[in-house]
């Protein structure tokens, strides 16, 4: 596959790649963009080469995942070195002030994203690959570089945890909403 063809294919997958990069970077948009840029650079330089052994999408996602992990490790080391004594900077909402922020702030989505953050990384990744990217469990296993049995386990556990935390948050939200509406009824 020559570079022009590859560029065309990457362009088709760009949206999905960005979504996957976002998931790998814990929804940090700036970080996701940086990771995606690094991935494209790797491809251009030939450091990451597609050999046609798997689907382009699964290969690309595996590269993105690996790059995100490496970048995250580098960033953590940098933070540890620079701010060993000081407190870490508070996590910023990268979507604040953007048109999508309106959507992000919608209560259901907010709860959903909070619930996603509470999941272990592997479970979150499997759920993202299956529900968001419409990959099969086999493809998800290829992307993550683990066995299909492990993927299946992470998938089931992830779904269960996500469901539980969504229900819990809904319940909390319902109680708080009821408190606001009829304070005497709850106490």
């Amino acid at each position, binding site marked *: 596959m020559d570079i022009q063809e590859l560029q065309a294919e990457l362009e088709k997958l760009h*949206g999905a790649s*960005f*979504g996957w990069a976002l998931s790998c970077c814990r929804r940090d948009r700036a970080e996701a*963009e940086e990771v995606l840029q690094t991935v494209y650079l790797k491809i251009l330089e030939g450091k990451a080469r597609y050999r046609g052994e798997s689907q382009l999408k699964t290969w690309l996602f595996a590269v993105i995942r690996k790059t995100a992990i490496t970048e995250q490790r580098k960033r953590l080391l940098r933070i540890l070195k620079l701010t060993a004594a000081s407190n870490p900077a508070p996590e910023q909402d990268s979507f604040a002030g953007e048109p999508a922020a309106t*959507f992000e702030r919608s209560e259901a989505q907010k709860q*959903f994203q909070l619930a996603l953050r509470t999941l272990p990384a592997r479970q979150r990744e499997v759920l993202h690959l299956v*529900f*968001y990217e419409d990959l099969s469990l086999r493809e998800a296993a290829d992307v993550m570089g683990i066995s299909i049995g492990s993927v299946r386990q992470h998938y089931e556990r992830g779904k269960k945890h996500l469901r539980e935390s969504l229900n819990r948050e809904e319940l909390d939200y319902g109680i708080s909403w009821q408190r606001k509406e009829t304070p005497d009824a709850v106490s």
Partner: protein
Amino acid sequence: MESAGSEKRLQTLFRELKLADERVAPDFIGVWNRVQTSPSPRGFRISLAVATALTVITLSSLVLWWKNWQPAQRSNQAVVSGPATPDAMPAPGLATPDHAVPVHSKSNRRNVKLVARRHPALNTTNVAIGEDVSISNWQSPTARLLQSPADHVLTSLPQLDRSLINLKTFLPDTPQ
């Protein structure tokens, strides 16, 4: 039934999330062009390594050349002082290594260096002076081989009006 419902709900939530992400995704062409135009860290690292290696090689070769050049220059000066004038030739009787004058004495060299450092413009003149001094002090390294006990016979002439006997004593090995 409940499980299928919750799965559908998860799918909906993920789909909504995907739509939101697509809205904020950066333009592919922009990212791609940025990647193509930005100097790659790998390329930069390689060029930096090449530049460092070239600098090191150049410096080390300069140092080596400088070290080799200095002794070569010294030996050249000694060779240049080779064509000695017959007037400057010392008397054969005195031409022993013990009496050999060094080409450059240490103090001489030091003085020349000091002057050269203080007055760089006079460098060429000093070199010429140094060469003259070395020429005037030059001794052939094979002068010793030319010595013999009968040197005085070769360098002197018998006096006129001398008797034959004297001549005979003067040349003892001649057949009588």
